[in-house]
């Protein structure tokens, strides 16, 4: 059984996300410089790099949690016909940001579950309150997803009653319930105790196998190599190296990538 066994829930195969020339600075501190990213349907892209490299800022730019100073993000069904294009260089309106967010869902490092809502309410909040889907349908969907990640019995629990790994799985289900075209993960396992990391990575791996389009900021290089189609290594606000996961992680060409990969592998 798959998390998304209903074919209507599968993202459309042809759509792409295309980001061009993303740039951002806080005062004189440049955090992003001319970042291009292409994501094909069903592709898993891993963003890696040292802290402060700008990888999280890139991820957050893709759904408007950060507004870059310049650059464009386009969602589309092909190269020519973009169904949504945002130019951050121009003034970005609320409607444009909302349209961007409609197409993606985010899983946070610190889960960011709503503490005053039960697990079920956390999950159906977006579908019911924002997407105006029927409540019964949203509940059925939430229960199905919860069962799939092994948390059916936690339906009525509050987030504080769950372990970190359980909270993050709820965070993933909350994102899936929105039926987004693109899933964004911001270091989804960095706040977890080591013994809980496996559960969460297992769920993400299944999603990758089911063909979800995902961008994952992660420090788990072994995991990135396992699930990602493409790895982008960033440092100092620029893309240093990109390519198929095995190439970038096993045989990096750039000196900075080599150092980074070596250091992280030593830490493990």
């Amino acid at each position, binding site marked *: 059984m798959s998390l998304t066994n209903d074919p209507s829930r599968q993202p459309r195969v042809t759509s792409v996300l295309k980001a061009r020339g993303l740039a951002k600075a806080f005062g004189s501190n440049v955090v992003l410089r001319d970042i291009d990213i292409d994501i094909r349907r069903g592709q898993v892209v891993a963003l890696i790099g040292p802290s402060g490299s700008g990888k999280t800022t890139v991820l957050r730019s893709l759904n408007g*949690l950060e507004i870059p100073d310049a650059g464009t993000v386009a969602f589309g069904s092909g190269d020519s016909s973009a169904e949504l294009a945002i130019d951050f260089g121009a003034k970005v309106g*609320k409607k444009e940001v909302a349209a961007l967010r409609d197409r993606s869902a985010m899983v946070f490092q610190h889960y960011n579950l709503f503490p005053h809502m039960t697990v079920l309410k956390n999950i159906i909040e977006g579908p019911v309150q924002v997407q105006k889907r029927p409540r019964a349908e949203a509940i059925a969907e939430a229960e199905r997803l919860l069962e799939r990640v092994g948390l059916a019995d936690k339906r009525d629990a509050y987030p*504080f009653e769950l372990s970190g790994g359980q909270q993050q799985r709820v965070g993933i289900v909350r994102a899936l319930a929105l039926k987004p075209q693109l899933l964004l993960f911001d270091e989804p396992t960095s706040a977890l105790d080591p013994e809980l990391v496996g559960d969460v990575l297992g769920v993400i791996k299944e999603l990758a196998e089911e063909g979800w389009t995902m961008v994952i900021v992660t420090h788990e290089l072994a995991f990135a190599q396992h699930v990602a189609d493409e790895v982008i290594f960033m440092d100092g606000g620029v893309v240093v190296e990109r390519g198929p996961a095995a190439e970038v992680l096993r045989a990096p060409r750039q000196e900075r990538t080599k150092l980074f990969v070596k250091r992280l592998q030593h830490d493990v």
Partner: protein
Amino acid sequence: MNWDLIWSSFGPLITGAVTGTIPLTLASFAFGLVLALVVALMRLSPNWLLSGIGRFYVSVIRGTPLLVQLFVIFFGLPSIGIRLDPWPSAIIAFSLNVGGYAAEIIRAAILSVPKGQWEAGHTIGMSRPQALVRIILPQAARVSVPPLSNTFISLVKDTSLASLILVTELFRNAQQIAAFSQEFMALYVQAALVYWVICLVLSTAQSAAEKRLDRYVAH
């Protein structure tokens, strides 16, 4: 000591509480809270004019005595042609006062909710107002119950000032019976007792509210 008189005075004092002190407190607190929420949001607004107005308002309310505010509205406004009855004057003055103090409490409570909660709301597609109402305010409520209860309990006692602009409430009834009977000590201690009992009830309600709002927090 005229024990019969003392004993029979409880009736008018409690009537004063029920028909004066309590409705005056409830109305002023309700209006004051709405005002406070508006002012808190103004102060949090990126618009410098709105936040400036909010800041100015809070500064004036906190920087002047409540009695003076009450007198400006009841005795002052008539000289510029605005004549208000005692009750509306009292409700306006107390609401404005609560608004100023509670605005700071609500502002701090909103700021105490982690930024990630706003972001999580946005990423599930919520607008700012939607995230405020559904995600942020319920969490801010928990934080603000203890300080708002303080404001509420202070307000119960502050309404005694309304006696000075002729509102018939608990303390004004006590003053009248005391003046008539010359039993000052007895009547004012009795009045104090009634205020105290009201505040004890409110403290109990506060504990219950805190307990309810704490149900989703680790203990």
